[in-house]
């Protein structure tokens, strides 16, 4: 059986080997060049519909150098190294006004993933729910 390299592949670069620090800085530098604001977010609930990861710090609107956001990545890793951490870049130009780039910069060591819960309905119809194994434990106890 062919297996995906990972079982959580959200973000722009999840199919590449984990980005090195220099590669992360290069992507942040690109975001700065494009005039985007940068945000560092973390979570222990990586459900794809979990839109609101925790914000590690205030969004960085006026930094000129990637070292700034990268410093926050490092600090966040120190505290939440067992969680998912991503860097989001936000473009506020009209007709976009949304995230322009979003990539994972930290993963838990063990990623148990998700399974499907099926609810059978009439005429073979099926209602699906995605369940994260990690969230069976309370916040703070996941991914240990």
């Amino acid at each position, binding site marked *: 059986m062919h297996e995906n390299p990972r079982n959580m592949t959200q973000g722009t*670069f999840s199919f590449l080997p984990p980005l090195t620090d220099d590669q992360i800085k290069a992507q942040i530098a690109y975001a700065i060049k494009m005039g985007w604001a940068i945000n560092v977010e973390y979570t222990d609930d990586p459900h794809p519909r979990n839109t609101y990861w925790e914000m590690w710090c205030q969004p960085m609107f006026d930094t000129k150098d990637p070292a700034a956001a990268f410093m926050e990545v490092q600090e966040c890793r120190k505290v939440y190294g067992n969680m998912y951490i991503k860097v989001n870049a936000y473009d506020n130009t009209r007709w976009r006004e949304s995230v322009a780039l979003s990539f994972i910069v930290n993963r838990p060591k063990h990623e148990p993933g*998700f399974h499907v819960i099926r609810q059978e309905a009439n005429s073979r119809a099926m209602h699906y729910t995605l369940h994260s194994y990690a969230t069976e434990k309370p916040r703070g106890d996941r991914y240990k």
Partner: protein
Amino acid sequence: MAKPEIGKGQLTGAERYKAGVIEYKRMGYWQPDYVPKETDVLALFRITPQPGVDPEEAAAAVAGESSTATWTVVWTDRLTAADLYRAKAYRIDKVPNSPDQFFAYIAYDMDLFEPDSIANLTASIIGNVFGFKAVKGLRLEDMRIPVAYLKTFQGPPTGVMVERERLDKYGRPLLGATTKPKLGLSGRNYGRVVYEALKGGLDFTKDDENINSQPFMHWRDRFLYCMEAVNRANAATAEVKGHYLNVTAGTHDEMIERAEFAKELGSVIIMIDLVLGYTSIQTISKWARKNDMILHLHRAGNSTYSRQKNHGMNFRVICKWMRMAGVDHIHAGTVVGKLEGDPLMVKGFYDTLLQPHTPVAPELGFFFEQHWASLKKVMPVASGGIHAGQMHQLLHYLGEDVVLQFGGGTIGHPDGIQAGAEANRVALESMVQARNEGVDYMAKGPEILAKAARFCKPLQHALDTWKHITFNYESTDTPDYSPQVTPAR
């Protein structure tokens, strides 16, 4: 309102309405002094007049036959504000390098059209006129839709940004694949292809345009198996994925029933074919807005009338109409794949779908400036004969807001469908990464892919398998203005 300008030689008063047949240009359909109003609908036609018909008369005839005229004078015109309702040909240009052809600019008052109805707009603009004997060939090249009229349309139900937010996918083109073979798979086998491709790394899979509800696979079967596959793939990847469930059917009611079932099963996206017709497209578009459904349009049939340069219509106009009618995805060319598509023409289509405003740009086929008011962006879809080895070209020509669909390029992978999907995703992500890092990825594309293939065997096999595949045929539909001008064939 100022009275429309009267053209030279135009008849007025009782003379104009004497029973009989008079030239179109003398009936008021040729008005070279007319200054188009901001609220006029403008159209540009490529006209090949019959021998002996002068260009002005041909242009006036097109204006007449696409608005108020009939072959003979009718006194009932005098019961109306006919000067207003008459379309006006106001400018003629020679087509570069095609001596028998002319570009005619025609203005239509907004009051000629029903609000929020592509069917009504098109019944005038491409209604009777294309069969009109006085022209040997006629092609609608471009239109300017006034903001006031645009505002009566809903536009795309979702739009590019909301689609990205719903899917939680940013910063790269999306990836898709059409299930192959197009016809004959049972529902169970069909779902297998969907599962493999999505689990392997694609964002979307797709029904083909002619997959509806045939004896080998009825639609409910297809929907059920595909959604099982989608949800399994979602669980395997923690991503939001989708399968374009084609809801095209014989009747409206049937189409809506299929859409409702897709919704019940939790699909994020449905699909329709262009052959549905404009009324059905607007109907399902409104349904999609109401039900938070992304709406994918396959342009089935368009090449029947959009491919030849001397007759029919340019696909760019279809793009405009579809942005108005309201679809979220539309197939709009690949530049490098197996289907027709000159790079500049394709850029014109993409700009039409994605830009808030397009200035006059003859090289892209934009004869008019177009403000898109607040109609959302449509995601172009590039599909047909593309593979991972072309990733640098695809990113360069098509940009970031596009769905790249690798059907054969996924399912035909020697190591299987998942491997094919992974190869595409790795190729794409490494190309975007290189672009963002400031690498000259167009020049170094093959190098970047080779480097990525070192950690991704499936990509290596994909590159080996398709390394010689290109489709270098000359395009038939090319721009008339620079950089290279090709005569119409």
